[in-house]
Structure formats: structure tokens, C-alpha cells
């Protein structure tokens, strides 16, 4: 069984996002970039499955400009077997539908039975690509996964989903797509020997034009605004008791 892990390069979530006044977009010039944290969790889960001998190969896929290769190398350094890089000429405004179509092509080509991906990317917070991919491929879908267990016969997975009313347990038949939530696992660090090995692992480059997909934008960003650096409504409390009393005073409990 092959596992595909689509990953995204995003602005490092620990840095302060700034809006470029001209472009009205988040300014990425010289910004520190990193793998989307939910994608790291997806990579970790795929590696665990591979280490339990339930998967034959783990393949990371990312779509973007040349710099995206760095993010794929990080996945390879964490332990993924090989990478597929879908190359775009410039920072195209690719939207979840486009990504879903490209990924669907790759999943079909690789005949992958399992796709593990982040529930959303922390830059645009769309939370759509996994769902669209499932629709395009007609694969089963589990979103917001906090637990993942492959069945003994390898034909289905049992997943726990974090939903508003609690934890929901479901069985998904393969082939399937799961989008992962924060509490699924703790991603490993790339070890030094694996970092050194990453460069010699296979990384295939595919031009985006070779997919014959209409990538014209369906959604237009009207404006982006910076959130206040200091939320004056917020207050830090020291204990659960203090939190309870504060909330009681506000009349929200």
C-alpha cells in the first residue's frame, strides 16, 4: 500500500504575518517559511504506518515554486521515501479545487490507497482540499482525525474525529483520504543522518502545465487585514479556578 502525503509550504507560524500594502496580500518577501504544522502531523502518521510494515512506500507531494523543494526535503529528512514536486512558474493563486485536481491525478497515477494530509493549512485556513480530493476520486473521507488505526486485514481504517459534540469513531474503507488534527501525534524531528540522506532520495519534478487543468481562479481575495498585535480584550489567568470565576463574572457560564 502506497501512502500519499500532500504537504504545503507556509509562512512559519511562529513569525508575525505582515500585509503588503501594494499587493494587499501577506508579505512573503524574505519571510521564514516552514512546513504547515498539520502536514508535519500527516507525515509523522504516514511514517508510523510505514514503520509498522503496513505500507510499502510513503510519497510526499507539494505544489509551488522552486522553493517548495526545501519543504519536500524536510519531509524526506523526516523519513518519507520519495517526493513529487509539481512546479509552478510563479506564485500562482492556486485554490483548493486546482490542488484537488492535481492531487487526484497523482493519486491515480500512483494507485495510492491512502492519502494522509493536514486538515487545513495555517496560512489560508481553507480546510477544503482533502474534501474536494475525496469528491474527485470518490474515495471515502475522514476529516479532523485524532486517532488512526489500520485494520488487521488492511482493508479499512478506524478513525476518531474531533467534532463539536465530542469524539466520533468511524470506519473508513480503503481507498481513503484522512485529514489530520492537532492531537493525532507529535511529529518527530528530522535526525541528522536522515537530513544528510534526504538529498539522495528521489524527487520527481512535474510541470503544472502537463496536467491540462484549468487553473484560472474561481475565488478572488478582496482584502487582507492585519489582526491587532495586542488583543486588549484578552486576559491571562493563572488557574482553572480563576478562569471559572472570570467567565462567571462575564455571565457566559
Amino acid at each position, binding site marked *: 500500500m502506497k501512502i500519499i502525503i500532500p504537504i504545503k509550504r507556509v509562512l512559519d507560524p511562529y513569525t508575525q504575518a505582515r500585509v503588503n500594502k501594494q499587493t494587499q496580500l501577506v508579505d512573503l518577501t524574505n519571510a521564514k517559511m516552514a512546513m504547515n504544522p498539520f502536514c508535519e502531523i500527516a507525515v509523522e502518521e504516514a511514517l508510523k504506518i510505514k514503520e509498522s510494515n503496513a505500507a510499502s512506500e510513503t510519497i510526499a507531494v507539494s505544489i509551488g515554486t522552486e522553493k517548495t523543494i526545501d519543504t519536500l*526535503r*524536510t519531509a524526506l529528512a523526516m523519513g518519507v521515501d520519495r517526493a513529487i514536486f509539481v512546479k509552478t512558474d510563479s506564485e500562482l493563486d492556486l485554490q483548493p479545487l486546482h490542488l484537488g485536481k492535481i492531487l487526484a491525478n497523482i493519486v491515480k497515477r500512483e494507485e495510492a490507497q491512502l492519502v494522509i494530509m493536514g486538515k487545513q493549512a495555517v496560512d489560508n485556513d481553507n480546510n477544503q482540499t482533502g474534501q474536494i480530493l475525496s469528491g474527485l476520486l470518490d474515495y471515502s473521507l475522514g476529516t479532523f482525525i485524532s486517532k488512526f488505526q489500520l485494520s488487521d486485514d488492511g482493508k479499512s481504517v478506524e478513525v476518531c474525529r474531533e467534532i463539536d459534540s465530542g469524539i466520533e469513531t468511524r470506519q473508513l474503507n480503503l481507498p481513503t483520504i484522512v485529514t489530520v488534527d492537532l492531537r493525532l501525534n507529535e511529529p518527530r*524531528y*528530522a*535526525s*541528522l*543522518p536522515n*537530513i*544528510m540522506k*534526504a538529498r539522495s532520495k528521489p524527487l520527481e519534478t512535474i510541470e503544472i502545465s502537463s496536467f491540462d487543468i484549468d487553473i484560472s481562479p474561481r475565488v478572488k481575495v478582496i482584502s487582507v487585514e492585519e489582526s491587532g498585535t495586542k488583543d486588549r480584550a484578552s486576559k491571562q489567568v493563572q488557574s482553572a479556578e480563576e478562569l471559572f470565576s472570570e467567565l462567571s463574572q462575564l455571565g457566559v457560564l
Partner: protein
Amino acid sequence: MEFSLSSEQEMIIDTVSSFVEQELYPHEDEVEKTNHIDASLAESIKQKAINLGLYATNMPVKYGGGGLDTLTLCLLEKELGKANFGLQYIVARPSNILMACKDEQIDKYLVPTIRGEKVDCLAMTEPNAGSDVRSMKCRAELDGEYFVINGSKHFISHADMADYVILFAASGVEETSRGAKKKITSFLVDMGTPGFSVETGYNSVSHRGYHNFILNFDNCRVHESQVLGEVDHGFDIANEWLGATRLSVAAMCLGRAERALQIATEWAATREQFGQTIGKFQGVSFKLADMSMELQAAELLTLRAAWNDSQGKMTNSDAAMAKLKATEMLAMVSDEAIQILGGMGLMDELPLERIWRDHRVERIWDGTSEIQRHIISRSLLRPFE
């Protein structure tokens, strides 16, 4: 000129900084308060470092080390340097001088030290031989196949953790055009060798949780097979292998200064006095500008020296400039950071007071600032002699 880092180097920085933040920072307060690192904690940190390939990264791959070039090693040292010194030292970078091991010394000392099965310490300094290290009184006299060692060493770091010491002792005197000069030999001496004892050293203002010791040798007999390098040529291997240690000191200072600057910047951006954040006062903001500039200047000097070393062309002056600039920069940055924070900067709630205390030893060990200036000026003036 190429100033960007490779993707491997970026990833190594990410791994080491995550390791430092998640495995070392949480224990800092306790170590600073107790001046002690629990053995089980040290063992657990060591195992995690070994599993991640962060142990002995300065040693060649062929012996099981990480095989990092000097530049990449400095990037790693910078991240490790941010943490309490005792905690970061558990992620050992064994003394490079072990590369002078030969024959059975390789399997007995070099390889087990790289694997983390043995720990080394290095003994050169004596109460009356600091910067003038060749004046050492600890002596080794040949008696058949054995050297008989007598004398004592002090300020010997982490001898409590060590399984053996790389010892420097005077093995004779030679006449030179400038008068009599002691000949120095280096030895590998196991802890527990009869006649060799370790006593607790002094309490230092710097580096809590990381201790120094006094080593005493009283007719300690060491077999000639324990000589590291050649007899009477101890300083040759010291000069060959210990130069890069100065870059490690420099790189760790960069990391600490970065941490101090970050704390000071966040404070200046949020602390309000007289109705505005104090960073809006020029008196504070100009301090930040100078701190940042000094840090970058020291970083460029250090990384350039490291790059030269990776190319096999680092001069003594390169290493001296990096060590001198980085250690003195840290003095300025940690002092100014405390000035920006005011009273809070002195309290042990924040790592600033510790960075300020710790910086002091950096200007002294591995060659004082004055010795570094001597090395730099000698390289300028020698052509005219």
C-alpha cells in the same frame, strides 16, 4: 560571495533548535537553582541526542560521528549555546584532539567517546600556568615503559562526567635560541589509575550545573601506549586540533546573544512607561540597533572563520578574531539587555541574568581576550620582524 545556507543546514538548525527548546529549556530553571543535573536526566537527554544523531557531530562519520564541517558545526553550536551550559554539554562534542588517537587508542578511546560510551575531559591549566601554559609544573618522567606523572591541574571542566582525561604534562626541557623551553607530552589517563585523584574544584559565577575540578597526580604510572600523538610533541596536536574550539565558544556566544536580544526586543515592544512602549524612546531603541549590529558583525566573523576552516585555510588570527569579537559582543549585548529590562533583567525569572553571568567565563577560557589580541597583532607584525 555566497551567504545563504543549504537546505541541509537550515534543517539541522530546525532540528537542533527544536531539541534545545523542547528537551533543554524545560530543565534550565532547576539546574540554575540547584547547580546540579540529575544523572537520570542527563542520561535521558544523552540518549535522545544520540537517537537524533546530534551526539559527537564534530567527529568523522567513519568513526560514527556526525561528520559536520566546521561551518555547519558552528550553526549547531549556536543553537545549543542558547541553553544552560551544563545541559547543552550533555550533547557532547568530544575534544577534536582525540583525532590524534592511533592504533589501539582508536578502539579504546576515540570510538567509544563518539558513541557516548565514554566521556573525555581535557587538562592543561594549572594554578600557576594559565595563559602561560608552557610553564606548567605537572611533569612526566620516563621509567622503562612507563611515564611517572606528578603535579596537579585545576579548572578542569566536567571531570566528574569523564572516564578519562587528556592530560598535558612537561616531559623535559630543550634549549632554544630564546632560552630553555619545556617539552610537553599529551597522555590519555583513565579515571581510577593509581596515583590519580580528582577533587571538587571552585564555585564559579558562570555555568551553573557544569563544574570544574582539581586533578592530582602522585607518582601516577601511565604506560607509554597512552601517549596521545608523539612524545614531547603535545603542543603540536593541541595546535592542530584545538583551534576550532575557539569557534565553538564564539558560536555559542552568538546563540546566547540572539536569545538576550530577543527578550530585550520583546520587552521594548510591549513594556509601557510614560504612556508609550519603551521601544519608542530613542534611548532604548538605539541600544537595540547597536546590539543587533554587533551580533551580526560577530556572526559574520565567526562564520567566515568557520568557512575558512572548512576550506582548510583558517588562520590563528581568524579564530582569534571570531572568539574575541563574539565573547565581547555577548558582554555588551547581555549587559544592555539587562539595562533595557531594568530591575526585571536581574531577576532569575528570565534567562538574562544567567546569560550575563555566563558570558564572563567566555572572555577568559580558551584563551583570554588579551591572548586573542596578542595572536591577532602578532600575525600583523610578524612579517616586519
